[in-house]
């Protein structure tokens, strides 16, 4: 069954409705926060599947996760999802919505991951390079992950530039293993 259609349809509807009401930016922020929550707190996603929780409780949970009562459009949208029993699709809808919004406003999302905290200037320079190259707005986040040992990982949209020491070591290990097998 191609259930992928469902999330796209809801996401498109939400975007159109939010634009109509002029609340698209607020909704985008809420959705962004929500999808971050899905990755960071896996139990949040599980809770939405839980049949014991009432729709009202689920709504409260979602609103809290997305930063409180941000906009009427967002509030109504959650009601619609709960009513149509599509709340388990929320994560996909959130991701689809972000993609659609970014496409519409020419926004690129980028993440820079480094092993230690970097200088602000490096970060700003990278951001301006990307912005110049792609000709859009760059929405950049920074993450620190000591497990990459050194170097950096730059994720722009779907594409990833992995210049971390950890991945190079891994590649060397794999290739040596192959040669000496």
């Amino acid at each position, binding site marked *: *069954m*191609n*259930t*992928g*259609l469902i*999330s*796209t349809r809801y996401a498109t509807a939400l975007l159109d409705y939010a634009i109509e009401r002029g609340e698209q930016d607020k909704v985008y922020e809420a959705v962004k926060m929500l999808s971050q929550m899905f*990755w960071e707190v*896996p139990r949040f996603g599980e809770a939405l599947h839980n049949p014991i929780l009432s729709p009202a409780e689920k709504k409260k949970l979602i609103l809290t996760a997305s930063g409180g009562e941000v906009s009427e459009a967002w509030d109504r949208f959650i009601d619609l999802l709960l009513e149509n029993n599509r709340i388990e699709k929320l*994560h*996909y809808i959130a*991701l*689809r919505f972000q993609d659609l919004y970014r496409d519409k406003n020419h926004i690129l999302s980028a993440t820079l991951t480094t092993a230690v905290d970097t200088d602000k200037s490096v970060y700003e320079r990278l951001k301006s390079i990307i912005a110049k190259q792609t000709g859009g707005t760059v929405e950049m986040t920074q993450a620190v992950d000591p497990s990459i040992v050194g170097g950096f990982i730059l*994720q722009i949209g*779907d*594409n*990833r*530039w*992995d*210049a971390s020491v950890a*991945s*190079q070591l*891994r*590649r*060397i290990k*794999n*290739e*040596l293993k192959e*040669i*000496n*097998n």
Partner: protein
Amino acid sequence: MSNNVIKTSEVSEVLRMQLEGISTDIKFDETGVVMQVGDGVVRIYGLHNAEANELLRFDNGVEAIVMNLEEDNVGAVLLGSSAEIREGSTVKRTNRMASIMAGEGLLGRVINTVGTPIDGKGKVTGELFEMPLERKAPGVVFRQPVDTPLQTGLKAVDSMTPIGLGQRELIIGDRQTGKTSIAIDTIINQRANFEAGNPIYCIYVAVGQKGSTVASTVQTLKEYGAMDYTVVIAANGSDPAAMQYYAPFVGAAIGEYFRDTGRNALVVYDDLSKQAVAYREVSLILRRPSGREAYPGDIFYLHSRLLERAARIISQQEVAEHMNDLPPSLKGKVKGGGSLTALPLIETQAGDVSAYIPTNVISITDGQIFLETDLFNQGKRPAINVGISVSRVGGNAQIKPMKKVSGTLKMDQAQYQELAAFTKFGGDMDKVTAMTIDKGKKNEQLLIQPLHQPMSVEKQVAVLYCGTEGLLRDIPVGKVSEFEKQFLFTLDVNHKETVLDRLKNGEFNDEITAILRKVAADTVKQLQN
């Protein structure tokens, strides 16, 4: 002792050279994020440009194959353990279709679905060519009719359900009826071709079997010297369903390498019912709608596209070179006249051939060899039910003497079985009936053949000639196998050039039959004393 000391400089030098060869350039990878993982299937967000059947790679090296392309996610099946893969893990595209590295180096080896050797003999050596797992079957223009026999070495098969190069013959029956044995005996019988310098390469695909069963099959093949020209692909019962589902495709891809380079190959899929079950499992987890017996709608297509790849390629070189869907690795290496013969196996439950998968595969293949538990328990081995076993194209592939000798055999045996059923309760019978029954009984004895003892085609012709011509009427049924032994021994010693070699070359005339009759009469006389 001094020789065993590892010289540090030497090791470092080797390592340094190896390190030089490692590519360090970084490029943009297209990535996606795992949304859901479970039961060997992952759902990925991102990877917007991924193609169907593309190979994906996780950071820890585990690979997956794209099976579902949906609007907001990509469904992929894992070709390894899902232990280290979590929600939020990144996965990247490899821009490669799922494929297998095939070449002569695979002969004598046991590999798994991804091509990793599992026989402990190290890396596969020699030149290897990348063959895609999913590939279109050759078109009508690039084929030629089946007209050359593939000798199984089994009297019952070669005489009544003959198999030709490029044919697809189904072996079907309940568990423990000797399906695998027929396939293994066929592989063992190709030893003669290998020694003669005209090998038929064999590929044995074990799907969902016990590791110990595969090990003992490999041992048998080794004992009979068959591993020299055989590749074994094993996706054991404990492997992920995706590995079991793709194993037959790996067999077909390796077979195609031999087929398209002008050689003959035989691939045994043991068995396709287990593959269908693995595919059902994957499909259900991917939430594809299910149909009859919970199999997905494309289960017929699964088997038909796999078996269509068995073909005899046209021998006209200039036509063969333009074969459709050729992988880039084979460009310029294609030779005409090759073939890929498929022997799929299907396990039935309590003899029920009208279940979904058996009927599908029966309709796809060019005939079937039907094995029965009752016959097996009566000691008739191979336990082939002659009445419902057929070969739709193999008749054209028989050598002339075999065609002449076995022409009436199938009919005779069917008639005998009918009469035998009638006369089971005793009573008088006329002379003609008694004779038919007597001849049938003896033919039945003649067709019995011990395990792993394939017989050359000329010997089969000689023996079956005695049966169909009724030369055994003066000896009791119990002495038929003794007759066979002595008769063949005499022929081998006294008439090798005059009879056996000529039969092998397709000659069949009065001179030969006269000798056969004489030797048979002498042997009968000896046995009567």
